[in-house]
C-alpha cells in the first residue's frame, strides 16, 4: 500500500472518530434534570443536535413544542408546554427569538404509566398544558403525541341571487341574505353568517368577489353596501377557511429514562 492510500485510510478513520466524539458529546449535552421544584422534572426528548429554539424541544412538522415541565401530584400528571413556529408570519416581530406562525397544534396525547397502562388526553388550540388522570399510585414512563392538527387553507365560493332568504354553504359556515334594502343611490344587503362552534371548526371570513361592495362587519353576519344604482342581481361570496386537519403518528415528548 503506498503513502497516498495510507493517508486516505487515515483520513477516513479521522472523520469517523470525529463524528463519533461529536455525537457522543451532543448526547451528553442533552439536559436531564433542570427543574428544581418538587414533583417536577424536566422533559427530555429526542432532539436534533442543533435545536431550532432551545434544547429539549420537540419538532411537530413546522411547529416546535417546548416542554415546560411535568408535574405529578395526587394521581394527576400535568405537562406544560409552549409552542413556537418555524413558518413565515405577517407579524413583524422585533424580538430576538423571531418566532414564526404556529401552523401545527398538538391534539391527542398518550401517557404510558410505569406499569404499562395507557392514559389518553386531548388538548385544544389554546391549551398550553395537558392533564392525565393516572391510576392510583402509577408513575409516568413516557408521554407521546399521537395526533396533531395542521392548518389547511381551503377555499369555497357560493353564488346567491340578491333576494331575501337566499342561502348557501361556504366552508366557514352558512350564509343567508336576511334583507335587501334598495335606496336611491345604493343597495344595502344584510347577510347572516352561521358559523359552527367548536375548537377545531374551520375559521374563515366570507367576502364578496366583486370589490365594489363595501363590507361592514357585525356580530353574526355582515352588511354589504353597493354605491350607485347598478347593483348586480347576483352576489358571489368566497372564503378561505383554515381547517385544522388531523394527522396521526407518534412523537415522543417525554421518557422517564432520560427525564
Amino acid at each position, binding site marked *: 500500500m503506498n503513502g497516498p492510500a495510507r493517508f486516505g485510510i487515515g483520513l477516513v478513520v*479521522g472523520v469517523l472518530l470525529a463524528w463519533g466524539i461529536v455525537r457522543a458529546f451532543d448526547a451528553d449535552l442533552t439536559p436531564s434534570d433542570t427543574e428544581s421544584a418538587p414533583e417536577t422534572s424536566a422533559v427530555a426528548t429526542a432532539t436534533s443536535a442543533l435545536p431550532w429554539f432551545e434544547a429539549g424541544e420537540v419538532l411537530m412538522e413546522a411547529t416546535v413544542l417546548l416542554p415546560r415541565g411535568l408535574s405529578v401530584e395526587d394521581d394527576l400528571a400535568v405537562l406544560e408546554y409552549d409552542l413556537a413556529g418555524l413558518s413565515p408570519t405577517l407579524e413583524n416581530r422585533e424580538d430576538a427569538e*423571531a418566532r414564526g406562525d404556529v401552523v401545527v397544534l398538538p391534539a391527542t396525547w398518550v401517557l404510558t404509566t410505569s406499569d404499562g397502562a395507557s392514559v389518553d388526553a386531548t388538548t385544544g388550540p389554546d391549551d398550553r398544558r395537558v392533564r392525565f388522570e393516572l391510576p392510583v399510585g402509577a408513575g409516568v414512563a413516557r408521554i407521546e403525541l399521537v395526533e396533531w392538527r395542521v392548518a389547511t387553507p381551503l377555499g369555497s365560493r357560493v353564488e346567491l341571487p340578491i333576494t331575501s332568504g337566499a342561502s348557501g354553504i361556504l366552508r366557514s359556515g352558512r350564509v343567508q341574505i336576511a334583507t335587501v334594502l334598495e335606496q336611491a343611490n345604493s343597495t344595502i344587503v344584510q347577510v347572516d353568517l352561521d358559523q359552527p362552534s367548536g375548537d377545531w371548526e374551520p375559521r374563515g371570513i366570507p367576502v364578496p368577489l366583486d370589490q365594489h361592495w*363595501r363590507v361592514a362587519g357585525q356580530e353574526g353576519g355582515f352588511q354589504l353596501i353597493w354605491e350607485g344604482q347598478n347593483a348586480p342581481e347576483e352576489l358571489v361570496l368566497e372564503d378561505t377557511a383554515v381547517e385544522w386537519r388531523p394527522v396521526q403518528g407518534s412523537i415522543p415528548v417525554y421518557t422517564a429514562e432520560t427525564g
Partner: protein
Amino acid sequence: MSGTDFEELFKSPLDPPREDDRVWFPLAFGAVAGFAAAAALLLLGGGGSEVAATTSAPTPVTTSAAVATPLEYPAGYVEIAPDLAARPVAVVVGDEAVTVSFVTVVSRGSNPAVPNWPLGGSWLLEAADGGVVSSDRVVLSRFSPGVFSVAFALSDSLGPATALSRITMAERWDHADKTGAITLPYAGEPFVAAEPVDSEVGDGVKLTLPDVELGRYQGRVEWSVTGPAPHGARVTVGATLLDAAGEAIGSYGALPELVAPRTTGIIDLTWQERFSTNQQGAATVRLDYTVGIVTVADTQISFDLVDVPTSR
C-alpha cells in the same frame, strides 16, 4: 523486554523516522487531518446533522424531492424559494376539486417576517397512471403565509378516486417589494382626496389611488396597478397624518393580511392609535405604500404524494 522495546522506550521525537514510521506516518497524518476537518465541519454545522446555509436559488430552480434538503430545514421539507421550504401534508378530495395542502418553514436563522413567500404559481398534479393536470388556483390563508393549498378541478382525467403520485411546482410567483410614499395636503376630517393620485413604483409599473378617504377611526384606499404586471401585485397602503413641522400625529394601518395578487383592490384602514384629526393639527397626509409586483420564476420542484394522507 526485547531490544526493539528498549529502542522504542528511549527514542527521541527528533530521531529520523524508521522504516516502520514511514509506513505509518501517512496513515497517522491522514487520521489527524481527517479528524480536524470533520470535527470543524461537524461543530460548525451542528453535530453532523446540519449543514451550512444554502445560497439563494437561481431562476429557474431545479430541485427534486428525492434529493433531501439539507438540514437547514426540518426533514422532509424541500426548498421552494430562497430561505423557504415546503412539504405537502394533506390531500383533500372535495366535490369540485382535489386540493393539496402545504406547510412552509423558513430556513434556520432567517427572519420569519421577511415576506419572501410565494403568492401563487402554477402546479402540475401527476396521477399514478401517468396522467397530468394543471392547477386551478393557489389558495392562500388570509392571515398566515405559513400554509397554502393548490386546488385542481375535478375533470375526466382527475376523479375523486384517482391515485396520485406527485405534485410539481412549475411556476413560482415571486413578489419583489417596492416601497414609496405620496404626500398630500390635509384639509381636515373627513379627508377625501380631491383627485386620483399616482406614483411610479419602478419597472414601468404605476400605482394609482383613485380614491383615498380618511375619517374618524377608519379609512379606505382604492388602488390599481398598470404597466408590465400581468400577474398583478400585492399592495399595502398606510396613512400618516403630519403636522406643519412634519411630525407624525397619528396613523392608519390595515390588518396584516395575505391577499392574492391582483391589479385592483380596496384596502380598509383603521386607526393605529387614537389621535386628533382636526385641521389645526394636521397639515399633510403621507400615504406609504408597498407594491409587490408578481414575477414568474420557472421551477421544477417535485413532491412525492404517495405517503401524504388523503381525506374528504
